[in-house]
């Protein structure tokens, strides 16, 4: 058999995930990726503090019955924040249900961002205005939409980049494979960010794949794969930023695997004590993304009390806005059931709305 034209080992990820700031906040040198400037890290730290507060507040709102469900990204905030910060306003973000912090960091009002998880039937925000797709609940399906959005932009000669997020479990889905393959064949500007948080509800990564790493899958599609410490926001900004700018310049798609850990249960409805031991969870607390960035910024002398207070205040304002929004009673309009299914309402839906309207009128008259 003939050998391939080139072995393309340049597409393989490194042996160890890219890390720029270690668990103690110490900067480590890297020959390819430079640490972002301190002001950028300070901005990211502010977003991390806010992201952590959003996760805490959302959990509390579930306990109070104000949110239907919350898949928390506690412990994964560095991925959330970096995904939002590396994009321009005219780029596109494709989030999953666990990526509310990324959605809010990119500028969506928290009230709108939580509409879906409140149990409503729509995304809550205007995807076109924010250039953020509605949170995807089915796994990996949105990655293909990202490829199509990128194709359309490329066809018009725009330099838009699409960042598409998914989790480790989603890499087992057929649509993950099809999306990476289409992106590579069409050579479109999509950066795939896999947050490997080690669990798909209860199932560990070892049951999803026997690959050396998820990033190794990239070479199978002919795109570069890279692994990055998913709790190091500096490394994420550098690696994702590099992939985004490379895609923008016509370099094609890339697959980034961020190694992180889901610190809490899958959602409030899950019991993670049934499938993992506390020691494992505690070990990951040492690698917390906020703690390490704070240590780094303090050591650099870039974080003073006033700034910390300002970040905390900003986070608290967001939490208050979430509480206010979710505690407000919502009175959905029953006609909304029929309004958006088709651009022009069909005669059948007209008749069904007339029936419901009549039922409501009779109910009101009888009450």
């Amino acid at each position, binding site marked *: 058999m003939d050998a391939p034209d080139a072995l393309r080992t340049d597409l393989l990820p490194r042996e160890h995930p890219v890390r720029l700031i270690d668990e103690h906040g110490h900067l480590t040198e890297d020959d390819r990726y430079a640490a972002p400037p301190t002001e950028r890290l300070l901005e990211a730290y502010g977003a991390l503090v806010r992201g952590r507060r959003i996760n805490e507040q959302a959990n509390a709102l579930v306990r109070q019955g104000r949110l239907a469900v919350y898949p928390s990204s506690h412990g994964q905030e560095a991925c959330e924040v970096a995904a939002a910060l590396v994009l321009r306003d005219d780029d*596109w973000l494709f989030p999953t249900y666990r990526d509310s912090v990324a959605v809010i960091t990119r500028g969506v009002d928290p009230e709108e961002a939580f509409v879906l998880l409140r149990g409503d*039937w*729509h*995304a809550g925000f*205007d*995807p*076109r*205005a924010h250039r953020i*797709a*509605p949170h995807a609940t*089915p796994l990996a*399906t949105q*990655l*293909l*939409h*990202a*490829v*199509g*959005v*990128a*194709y*359309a*932009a490329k*066809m*018009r000669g725009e330099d838009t980049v699409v960042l598409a997020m998914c989790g480790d479990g989603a890499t087992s889905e*057929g*649509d993950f494979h*099809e*999306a990476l*393959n*289409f992106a590579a*064949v069409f050579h479109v500007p999509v950066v795939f960010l896999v947050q490997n948080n080690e669990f798909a509800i209860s199932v560990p990564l070892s049951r999803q794949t026997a690959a050396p790493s998820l990033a190794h899958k990239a070479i199978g599609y002919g795109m570069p794969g890279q692994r990055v410490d998913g709790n190091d926001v500096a490394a994420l900004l550098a690696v994702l930023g590099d992939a985004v700018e490379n895609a923008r310049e016509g370099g094609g798609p890339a697959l980034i695997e961020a190694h992180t850990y889901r610190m809490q249960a899958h959602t409030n409805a899950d019991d993670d004590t049934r499938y993992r031991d506390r020691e494992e969870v505690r070990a990951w607390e040492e690698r917390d993304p906020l703690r390490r960035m704070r240590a780094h910024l303090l050591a650099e002398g870039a974080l003073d009390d006033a700034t910390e207070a300002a970040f905390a205040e900003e986070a608290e304002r967001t939490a208050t806005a979430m509480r206010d929004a979710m505690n407000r009673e919502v009175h959905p309009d029953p006609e*909304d059931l029929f*309004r*958006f*299914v*088709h*651009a022009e309402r*069909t*005669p*059948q839906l007209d008749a069904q709305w007339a029936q419901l309207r009549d039922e409501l009128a009779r109910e009101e008259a009888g009450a």
Partner: protein
Amino acid sequence: MSMIEHTRTEVAEQEAPAMTMAGAINRALADAMEADGSVLVMGEDVGKLGGVFRVTDGLAARFGEHRCFDTPLAESGIVGTAIGMAMNGLRPVVEMQFDAFAYPAFEQIVSHAAKMANRTRGAIRLPMVIRIPFGGGIGGVEHHCDSSEAYYAHTPGLTVVCPATPQDAYSLLRAAIEHPDPVIFLEPKKLYWSKAPVDVTAPAAIGHARVARPGADVTLIAYGSSVGVALDAAEVGESEGRSVQVVDVRTLTPCDDETLFTAVRSTGRAVVIAEAQGFASVASELAARIGEHCFEHLEAPVRRVTGFDIPYPSPKLEHFHLPDVDRVLDAIDTLNWEDR
């Protein structure tokens, strides 16, 4: 211009040229691509080959490989990518190579294409067309002859269209491409090489059935390749002294209840004909709607003539499965004619 050419041009303007259904669809794609730079065609083998049925013949050469192109062989990928394109300003027309090969795209169609407008309160509508060569009667091997319309017709948010003539294939595909929401465009394979005049200036609107043949005693309701069976049965019925009306449904969803009900009320008898297996089918839905809305006008229960509730049979057995003229005439005979 010579005199002869001039005369030819005049003739061409007077009489619409005959086209095959495949040719009419090809012309509709080309005209839509010419009229609107955001229309593109993609699928398996649609580029250089021109599609396994040659429906996209010449489009890649004429419009360039960025507007008519082959994709990797993955149906979910094709539909999912088209959804993204439609989210971002394009009007993709995708080809599923055969009916049963569209099933890998099912999740993208029902969970995303059909629901995106609703999930975004109308902020994102998806102007995309999924063309599916469907149905049997061509001696095809397994997985090549399914009548899969019920899956799509059952899904809220989809518009499902099925032409029975080259004219409707042209006009309805143009309308489907201009439609603001996803359209499933079902092309009866058996009719790809049927030929009839096509007037490319004739407008068509989605959502309208057509009375294909007038008649006073009984209404046959059909779509796609079954329209021909209904017309043949009507001809025979006429020779036996029954005046048989034929309605071509054309748009399966949203269904043109008004035309159907008016037709059935005028005759008082109805037979619904479709190739698809009958259980939980489009034919069943049409029969139920007619029963609910035309009961006072009916002389007899609405009958269905459909395929059996079996996987699509092999070429040697398919003629037993498909509705034919005799089976339709038998059904007509059961419609309580004693008083006449």
